[in-house]
């Protein structure tokens, strides 16, 4: 029951994150939206893991391990995106936008 509930929550977060990523003009908000989206995807993994509970475990350890790996990779992606954005802001300050 809770597995399906959190799975559906994940699906909803995917939509919200996707929306933010596509419509927010601010780069930082897009990066945040990407993280919301990622959280939704991980919850879908979580729901899948929970559904696969068995052998005395509260969930299937394989998708759980995938989420752990995924969180670290998503953090690395966020850091790269943020640092690129900050560098861009420093460059823009040096030479203001002609338009």
């Amino acid at each position, binding site marked *: 029951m809770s597995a399906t509930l959190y799975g559906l929550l994940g699906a909803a977060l*995917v939509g919200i994150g*996707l929306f933010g*990523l596509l419509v927010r003009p601010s*780069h930082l908000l*897009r990066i945040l939206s*990407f993280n919301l*989206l*990622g959280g*939704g*995807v991980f919850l*879908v*993994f979580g*729901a*899948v893991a929970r*559904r*696969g509970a068995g052998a005395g475990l509260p969930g299937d350890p*394989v*998708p759980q391990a*995938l989420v752990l*790996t*995924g969180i670290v*990779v998503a953090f*690395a*992606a966020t850091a*790269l*995106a943020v640092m*690129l*954005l900050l*560098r*861009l802001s420093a*460059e*823009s300050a040096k*030479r203001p936008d002609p338009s």
Partner: protein
Amino acid sequence: MNSAVSLAPTPWGLLPVLAVMLPVAGMVAALPLGARGAERLTFALLPVGLLIAIGTAAATYASGAPLVHLLGHWAPPLGLAFRADGLATAMLLTAAIVIGATALYARAEFGTPPGTPERREALSFWSLLLAVWGAINLAVVADDLFTLYVALELLTFAAMPLACLDGKRETLEAALRYLMFALLGSVLYLLGVALLYGAYGTLDIVLLAQRARAAPATVVAAALMTAGLLAKTALLPLHLWLPPAHAGAPAAASAVLSALVVKGSFVLVVRLWFGVMPGLPAPAAAQVLAALGAAAIILGSAAALAQARLKLLVAYSTVAQIGYLFLMFPLMTAAIASAEDAARAWTGGVLQAVSHAFAKAAMFLAVGLMAKGLGHDRIADLGGAGRAMPLCLLTFGLAGLSLMGVPPSGGFAAKWLLLTSAIEAGQWWWALVILGGGLLTGTYVYRVLAVALTQGNGDTAAVAEPKGQAWVALALALLSVVLGFLPLGAFGLVQIGRLDLAIGGAP
């Protein structure tokens, strides 16, 4: 058991593991070694990597079956496997050659002479080059959809900084847009992976090929993953990030980005459609993919024709050439009855990926030299370039022949295979697109050559062509042409281990 679907370890299975791990180890070691050490390490690894790729191809060809290695002896679904089939070996060879040529070329720009302090560009370039190499090799030999996700991310994280290595504002903007597209693409892919695991309890491609059914979860997963991968492959209309990112990078980086990085996600689309779900023919969806490809060929070529800057022209040409790759999809699904047509379309698609890699790397390297020598890359002002930089112009022309599909060249063989397969399958409209694309390509290549071969206003006399670098570019262009001389029998290699034959073709 059919050898294509066997996951039993094979004798030479360690080769694909080494093909991935050596560049990755090189990237990890690059940091403490510093720029000069990283450069020397790269040159030490290049011949080894090339030998490994050749060995993988030879072993695959000799045994007629994919090479398989089970990591840590754990068999899928619990464990992970590497599986080098014909497609993988073709890409391993391509990557080793393109990376090698790029490294030779890049030494002039990113080399660190002894006794000079480390530069940012140098350390970044060599370590990122090794990262791209390891990532592309991983993307073609890994047999697990999540490992492939990590491969995609490695590829993106290496490609993004390469695109903005010069640190200018325009390239930083292009890199940021690229990164956002790529991250969206991989997160959609990952969502599909979650659904597939939920439906089948495995992420191994060979096992999925046998288990996948046309259930809702499969369809939604396939749609999400395809969409995500197309964003990373820059298939029109998701191509907008590519031209500024590829054109703004240093020439050596552009070559790797256009030749290899976009091919990684393309190989994954192929694995998904003809590996994970070969039993699920989706003729309508395949037609849509090819229609996008056709639009990319026509619009991309037309956009290339309209560019005033040479580097952007070459980048738009990549958008168009990526389109050809997707023409194989309906020909593979329509032709399930005719194994011969499917085989031809498959070989055509793979050959297009390989020949474009050589031709486009050559073109970017040559154009980079021209831009540097002349101090600009405005097409209208290229007059005199032919006399000042003959090797570069020859490279551009030869690579152009292959992109156009003029015989005899690798590009011709690829397009001919796709074209005949389309006619045989009764889908003549793709043949028209191939011909039209060839004409447009011819026009934009001619446009550059025509201007460059004029006298110009004479201020190119002092321009010297760096011979060593120019020969490297020319060698790649020649390679893309020579591919067309290979007897068709040699392409039997790329057919090895095709899962759609083993599963979809079975009664």
